[in-house]
């Protein structure tokens, strides 16, 4: 396989029109993914991770202003007319959503919904599409796929529905799979199965995957590389192992420490991050995390900090890494 990246994002910026005025939902996001590579996006609500995903899918509202560049196999996607994007979506780039019940149309059989992208993008006959849909549903582990092809979404459990949406996303053998919180709505024992399934499919078909999650554990176990987002910017990025070994950004460290973990005795206090997630419409100038950071200085607020390399391909958008990384923050 070639070394050229399959998808390459450079300096992606998204400006959204919110009810509170224009908001820079994403700034300066850059990454490149080769075939078979997996990337995790982690962050809290409003950090820009889902907006980034929608920008890649070309699904942002019309009023959104996208800057920078998104290249798929060298072809520029920013500014592509919607008709051309439609040919890519579901065909070369697919997405799995958080809530399987709302991602499926309750009025159509699952067979119809899985077969639909096939018929639209490949133009095969209805009977062939039906056969292919059964094969896909079989592959994602839906029991009795052939028999249940004419069943409706409400007749399945949450985990089964998510398997169906995965089958839909994979129908046309996409190159890039975007999974936006694919297991957040599911039980923890089901979560493992679904993530296993996605991982083996990504491996088997040589896709690139972008996995979006708020859960550091899900990220740690499922992707090669990760990006931590906060206030629309990537505050830390690198190989997953490297980041978990030496967390560089105060926010990554704070997020890690704030999680309750098993075995903490009753009465243990959690280390919180002061304050709340800022509104995108009124982000602070300079470092977006400045208002909640324990080691903030005056110069942090002056301008958005540049990315500092703290290891091989491990970058941190913080001017105080000397302090933050000396203070610890690794998981060990």
């Amino acid at each position, binding site marked *: 396989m070639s070394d050229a990246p399959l998808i390459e994002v450079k300096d992606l910026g998204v400006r959204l029109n919110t009810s509170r005025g224009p908001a820079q939902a994403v700034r300066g996001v850059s990454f490149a993914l080769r075939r078979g590579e997996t990337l995790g996006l982690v962050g*809290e*609500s409003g950090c820009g991770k889902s907006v980034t995903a929608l920008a890649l899918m070309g699904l942002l509202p019309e009023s959104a202003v996208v800057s920078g560049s998104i290249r798929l196999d060298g072809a520029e996607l920013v500014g592509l007319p919607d008709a051309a994007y439609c040919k890519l979506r579901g065909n070369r780039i697919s997405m799995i959503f958080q809530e399987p019940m709302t991602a499926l149309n309750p009025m159509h059989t699952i067979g119809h919904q899985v077969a639909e992208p096939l018929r639209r993008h490949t133009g095969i006959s209805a009977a062939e599409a039906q056969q292919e849909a059964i094969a896909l549903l079989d592959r994602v*582990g839906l029991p009795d796929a052939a028999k249940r092809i004419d069943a409706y979404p409400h007749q399945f*459990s*949450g*985990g*089964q529905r998510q398997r169906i949406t995965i089958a839909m996303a994979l129908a046309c053998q996409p190159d890039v799979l975007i999974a936006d919180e694919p297991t957040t709505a599911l*039980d*923890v*024992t*089901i*979560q*493992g*199965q679904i*993530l*296993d399934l996605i*991982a083996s499919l990504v491996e088997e078909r040589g896709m690139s995957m972008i996995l979006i999650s*708020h*859960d*550091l*554990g*899900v*990220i*740690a*176990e*499922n992707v090669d590389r990760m990006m931590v987002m906060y206030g629309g910017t990537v505050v830390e990025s690198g190989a*997953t*192992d*490297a980041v*978990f*070994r030496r967390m560089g950004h105060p926010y990554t460290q*704070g*997020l*890690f420490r*704030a*999680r*309750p*973990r*098993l*075995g*903490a*005795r*009753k*009465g*243990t*206090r*959690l*280390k*919180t*991050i002061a304050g*709340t*997630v800022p509104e995108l419409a009124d982000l602070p100038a300079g470092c977006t995390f400045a208002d909640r950071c324990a080691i903030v200085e005056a110069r942090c607020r002056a301008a958005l900090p540049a990315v500092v390399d703290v290891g091989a391909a491990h970058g941190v958008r913080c001017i105080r890494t000397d302090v933050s990384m000396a203070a610890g923050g690794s*998981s*060990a």
Partner: protein
Amino acid sequence: MTAPDHASPAPGTPLLEVTDLAQRYTLPRESLFKPAAQVHALNGVTARVMPGKSLGVVGESGSGKSTLARLVMALERPTSGTVSLLGRDLNRMPPDELRRARRDFQMVFQDPYGSLDPRQTIVRVVAEPLTALGRIDRGSLRERVAVVLRQVGLRDADMDKFPHEFSGGQRQRIAIARALITQPKLIVADEPVSALDVSVQAQVLNLMQDLQEEFGLSYILISHDLAVVDLLCDEIAVMYLGRIVEQGRPDDLFAHSAHPYTRALLDAVPRARAGGIRRRRGAQAIVSRATATTGCPYAPRCPLADRHCRETAPALRSVGGAHLAACHHAEAVMALPPVIAEAG
């Protein structure tokens, strides 16, 4: 205070006692000629909470944990079994007495957006449990709302705002303030932090801990997150398909799990640490809870299940002191090496 003092029972009386609680729901009929199917949401649950102690209830969707919460709150009548608060059966009380008794047990809901009426100001939202008890003059009402708002870290000035002016975390603080206003002895919290961001979740959990210490509150904390329950509770009950399958102190449960389901839950939690190579889990069949099976309800998913398990349902029994488990192979499960907890 205009209201009479809280009932003070004999020492040693459990704060809450549920005995052999069962709840069945009738599903809508699929055919005119078949009897309507029933779901056993709760199947003989027995538990008690001593004053000042907290009970955690973990389980996945369909385990009956939310049904248990609604029954404890007397929002539904159980099919059979009793719920007693301070020795009094909630379902035998006359409505008026039940209404007065509610001052001792309040509830915090999961969804901080859905559980506050969007058209009421915060003062009305927070004061609702008080106004439900009887008339109270406006001045002292506002004063008491101000007190509880300060206790949960909000300001007096927030009183006249509407819920939409607050973030998710702040709304959950408002919901907690509302539960605190009658100075209850028990707060039933159904997934109180699962809708919140991680950093905000920590703030709310710390607040719940502080209130527990300050007021000697008891919680019944319903959660799918074992770590959250571990943090706040003295005892944990693991539920599966309407039954308690394991119960005990967090130490016992996590270090020496006696039920394979508890182990599966612990094992399924993704670990946030370096070197987290994918741990493959064997595919597990999903069983419907409408099917009434003989034998252990967990048997279809259990790696240790044998014929005995499929034929005879195990009873909840002691596997060491107050540590209970409903498994024929509990001793064998306990002998397994503990599920490796996360470093740090």
